[in-house]
């Protein structure tokens, strides 16, 4: 029974919190949810399937750029067109990249994903079609038009849009990682030869995990671009690829909640340190990362979860 408390509690907090926050803080919450979704998506390939990809921003950025390009070149602001197309392009990109990258394994897989991601980066950097006039990147992307008469999104209602998609994605992934398919991914991470020998087409599992992960990264990328009003080549590049990796590792790989916790810590520490010591943010992040690895190797999320189970067990046994 108590096992559900953190979920219900977190859901309530997320729904109610905008009433207590400034617009700025609300934006921070939106940002947190977007990156939590991005980190969760990355966790599917790295945490569950055990594939260390260094090009995950490609799918995040592909989704984001699709939305931005539709606005820039075709003046499409309608959510129901640009968002699905964004996710579709991200998914197709993942399907292509995965097909190429999964010819290799281990460190070579990592290098190929890195190279493919940087290809997109350099494409958007060098080809004018991918930029607003006179810029590197596309600016002026408005909050999407939901086509509901008499209703236009503001930052608060957009927070709820993001929360909605985060919630749906969380539930889908929650189902996924507990399913025979999700457990098989863990089996493949642990011992691919074994899984092959008992009848699993391990290549197909890794490939579909890669594509599913790319699709969720695409959702995150689409939402991010609306939130950010601006998308640049950096959002496809290596620095952005590092973000979900760091978040997932910090929060706890191969757990559903870990990346969410990791993203939370990352986003809020980033925010505070950039207010109080703007030039020191990378140092703070580095320190935090090292401390996590040293003292909570399995991730902060796992650590917190254990604490909770301990407390709730204690509570339940106290009740008799």
């Amino acid at each position: 029974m108590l096992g559900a408390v953190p979920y219900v509690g977190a859901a309530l907090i997320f729904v109610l919190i905008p009433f207590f926050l400034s617009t700025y803080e609300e934006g921070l919450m939106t940002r947190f949810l977007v990156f939590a979704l991005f980190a969760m998506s990355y966790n599917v390939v790295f945490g569950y399937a055990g594939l260390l990809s260094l090009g995950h921003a490609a799918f995040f950025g592909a989704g984001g750029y699709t939305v931005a390009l539709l606005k820039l070149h075709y003046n499409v602001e309608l959510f129901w067109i640009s968002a699905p197309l964004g996710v579709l392009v991200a998914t197709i990109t993942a399907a292509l990249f995965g097909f190429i990258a999964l010819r290799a394994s281990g460190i070579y897989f990592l290098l190929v994903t890195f190279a493919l991601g940087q290809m997109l980066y350099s494409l958007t950097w060098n080809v004018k079609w991918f930029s607003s006039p006179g810029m590197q990147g596309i600016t002026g992307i408005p909050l999407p038009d939901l086509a509901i008469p008499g209703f236009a999104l503001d930052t608060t209602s957009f927070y709820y849009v993001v929360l909605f998609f985060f919630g749906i994605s969380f539930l889908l992934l929650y189902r996924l990682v507990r399913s025979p398919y999700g457990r098989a991914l863990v089996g493949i991470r642990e011992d691919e030869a074994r899984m092959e020998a008992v009848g699993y087409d391990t290549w197909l599992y890794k490939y579909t995990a890669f594509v599913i992960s790319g699709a969720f990264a695409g959702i995150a990328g689409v939402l991010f671009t609306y939130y950010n009003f601006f998308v640049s080549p950096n959002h496809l590049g290596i620095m952005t690829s590092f973000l979900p990796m760091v978040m997932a590792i910090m929060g706890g790989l191969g757990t559903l909640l870990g990346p969410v916790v990791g993203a939370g810590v990352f986003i809020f520490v980033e925010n505070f340190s950039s207010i109080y010591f703007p030039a020191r943010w990378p140092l703070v992040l580095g320190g935090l990362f090292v401390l996590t690895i040293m003292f909570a190797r399995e991730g902060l999320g796992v650590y917190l979860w254990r604490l909770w189970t301990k407390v709730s067990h204690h509570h339940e046994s106290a009740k008799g």
Partner: protein
Amino acid sequence: MKALRVEDLSKQFGGVSAVNNVSFSVEIGERLAIIGPNGAGKTTLFNLINGQFPVTGGRIYFFEQDVTALPTHRLAHLGQARAFQIISLLQNLTVLDNALLTLHGTKPSRFKMFRPVEHFKDVFDQAIHTLDTLDLGEKKDELVKNLAHGEQRRLEIGLGLAMEPRLLLLDEPSAGLTKEEGVDVIGIIKKLGSDITVLLVDHDMEMVFEVAERIIVLHYGEIIADGTPEEIQADQRVREIYMGLEGNGDHVGAR
């Protein structure tokens, strides 16, 4: 019909010939052991039969179906189960997880994405039942790495059998086992039904002579003898190879 038929099978690594023009067939229900000194090509031969890597030449027929080009996971669906030389269970997962994953491997439900694995009642019950018969029911929530070596081997072979294979490939099942654990494994193999064909590679001659009805001796990738245990024991060339390598011994290759 033969359970397995291998024709002119060859495998080269670079310029080195690991398996050289090997041909043999295995009757359904037969217990066949493949022995030979280290580097004779036994494990390579196993890997070829089990689709671990492609052949250089020759053909493999499994129940008269040409499976030469099929990957391992397809062979699992056709009824090949394998226990590896080094125990290949998922060490960081629980005993039950291992059972569930193994049993799902050859069922269509292995691709299901939106139902918890525990809700597939038939597979779940089968997993629990299998663990009970292996005397591991009470350890179902333990991580495999915390099991004793003998228990791991029992689980590995037991799960292999739970896949209801037509051909069981045992690659050094006695490796790392104590005497008693070895006897345990021999017992399991002897109890198998006659519908299961067993192909066995082992250094432990006690295991081989106890279990096998027929023995093939490999040397430098070629078959140099093929016969009953008695015939093999009496074979002069076999004796020479083993004596030359391992000195004296009452029967070939005694450890």
